[in-house]
């Protein structure tokens, strides 16, 4: 008879994200119901199996997600990848991974949570066909200029360097460049340079021959060889070790490289797209990025503005994400409360579009009506505005400031109310209270 489920297992089974945990030997010791649905494996089939044989994600083939965290000490958030499921097909997922530790701070296991993105990817395609540029929403001038540039360089093989803060959509711009280019039917290989430890990145990019280092048990082609005749996207380029930057420079200049442990030059024809979220001048000044490489990559410079500098796009993005996620969560939601939208428009968005997307998903999940209400805003965003001094507090603590404002606007109460962000009636009440 199967063991009764603990309440912890019941809870974990009820969540929509796939979740698996491994012990310190990397054997699966928990697999929730959503993980069964996403991968097609039954819990009984995978328990006590090595996770690399079950959770075959692209990252496992090169570096295990939990292994990466063990090495770097940093958890992995929102990492997009593809997994091979039981029937052999591949599914896009977004995964988070973390290490479980005992009271002595020793790792005793790991946890991977993952979401199936297949449905959302197809919804995104639907939405993208209606009013966006390859899934990128940008009605403002800055984004329209970028879309125009992408069209203009469609016939070019020149490298492009995409700059922008984290979450601005650099990878989406790279996708747009690739699908509009003449190489669109060839391989498109993406490498996040920050994911690989320094020692492994060169091998990942240029391949290695058997015996080149301890772990090189057989010859392995690098990503450049796989991308031959196509395009390679090097994300977080400034995280690339300087030695590897020299090798990349040679590929850009001569189109040749050597596998690690081999001295035979190999010729490739690869278009290089690179991206960074660092300020280029800082990266050059502190030596993180070689100047000669920068000039080679920056033939076509593309700078994506942060979301706070293109607030005109926020309502469009909000609508688009509401459409996507209400479809995903089978809800009928048509719009968002004006005050909530106003707060979203005034928020700084340090995580840019990605952060906005997560916020809208959160609000859609919580929404009960056809319109998303203000109270469904995440506490972190609401608190940003709540910490701004409310009018009543202003009245109680700073009558002199209020007086100064009145003088400044020559006792024009409408202007004072506007500056305080309150109604005239409220201001009138405050003045009445001051008189008491």
């Amino acid at each position, binding site marked *: 008879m199967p063991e009764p489920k603990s309440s912890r297992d019941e809870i974990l089974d009820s969540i929509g994200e796939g979740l698996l945990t491994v012990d310190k030997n990397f054997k699966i010791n928990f697999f929730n119901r959503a993980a069964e649905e996403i991968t097609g494996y039954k819990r009984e089939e995978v328990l006590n199996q090595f996770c690399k044989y079950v959770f075959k994600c692209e990252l496992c083939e090169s570096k295990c997600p*939990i292994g990466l965290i063990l090495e770097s000490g940093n958890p992995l958030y929102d990492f997009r990848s593809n997994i091979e499921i039981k029937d052999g097909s591949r599914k896009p997922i977004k995964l988070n991974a973390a290490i479980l530790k005992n009271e002595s701070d020793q790792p*005793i*296991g790991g946890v991977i949570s993952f979401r199936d993105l297949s449905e959302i990817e197809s919804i995104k395609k639907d939405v993208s066909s209606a009013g966006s540029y390859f899934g990128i929403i940008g009605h403002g001038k800055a984004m329209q200029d970028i879309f125009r540039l992408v069209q203009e360089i469609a016939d070019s093989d020149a490298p492009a360097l995409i700059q922008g803060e984290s979450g601005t959509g650099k990878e989406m711009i790279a996708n747009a460049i690739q699908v509009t280019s003449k190489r669109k039917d060839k391989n498109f290989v993406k490498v996040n340079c920050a994911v690989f430890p320094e020692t492994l990145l060169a091998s990942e990019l240029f391949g290695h021959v058997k015996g080149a280092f*301890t772990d090189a048990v057989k010859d392995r082609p690098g990503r450049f060889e796989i991308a031959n005749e196509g395009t390679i996207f090097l994300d977080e380029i400034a995280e690339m070790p300087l030695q590897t930057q020299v090798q990349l420079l040679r590929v850009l200049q001569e189109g040749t490289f050597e596998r690690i442990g081999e001295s035979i030059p190999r010729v490739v024809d690869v278009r290089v797209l690179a991206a960074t979220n660092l300020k280029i001048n800082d990266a050059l000044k502190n030596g993180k990025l070689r100047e000669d490489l920068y000039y080679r990559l920056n033939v076509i410079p593309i700078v994506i503005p942060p979301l706070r500098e293109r607030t005109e796009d926020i309502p469009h993005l909000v609508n688009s994400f509401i459409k996507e996620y209400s479809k995903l969560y089978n809800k009928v939601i048509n719009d968002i409360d004006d005050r909530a939208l106003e707060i979203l428009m005034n928020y700084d968005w340090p995580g840019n579009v990605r952060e906005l997307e997560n916020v809208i998903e959160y609000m859609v999940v919580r929404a009960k009506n056809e319109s998303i209400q203000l109270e469904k805003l995440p506490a972190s965003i609401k608190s940003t505005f709540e910490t701004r001094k409310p009018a009543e507090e202003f009245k109680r603590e700073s009558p002199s400031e209020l007086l100064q404002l009145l003088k400044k606007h020559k006792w024009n109460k409408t202007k004072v109310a506007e500056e305080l962000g309150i109604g005239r009636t409220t201001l009138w009440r405050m003045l009445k209270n001051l008189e008491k």
Partner: protein
Amino acid sequence: MYSEMLGNKYFLARNYEDAAVNFQHTINSDPVNKSARKKLIICYTQIGQIQKAFESFYQLVKEDLNFIIETDPVADDCPCVELTDKYGNILPYENESYDLKLMLAMLWLYCNAEKSLEFFKRILIENPNDNRIGEVANIIETKIRLTNKLTH
């Protein structure tokens, strides 16, 4: 930061050098950790530290021979089969170095105790004064006899 789990990760990826460093740290703080010791023996054989491998092997065989013999190459993802294969069909009496024979003697114990015993016995013939080899051979032989007796 070194840990047994990171050692396991490298061990699964057959990166014996880094695995050895992590297992060594684990054992320093937890000397009775048999799982780390069992894997460290294999790591040492693969990075050319045969004597260090034998030191750990000798202690573990004396302490708990079954812990090595009962290794399941598939369920434990133990590389003993691929490693013994790597060295071809070297037989115990062939004219090979002491270190190579000792390495094979140790590796075979993870997947075939009889073969391991053949190597230890041959090493003993070639080095009759090696008491610890004799001791290990006796322990393995006693275990095999006992198992055979129970089976028949």
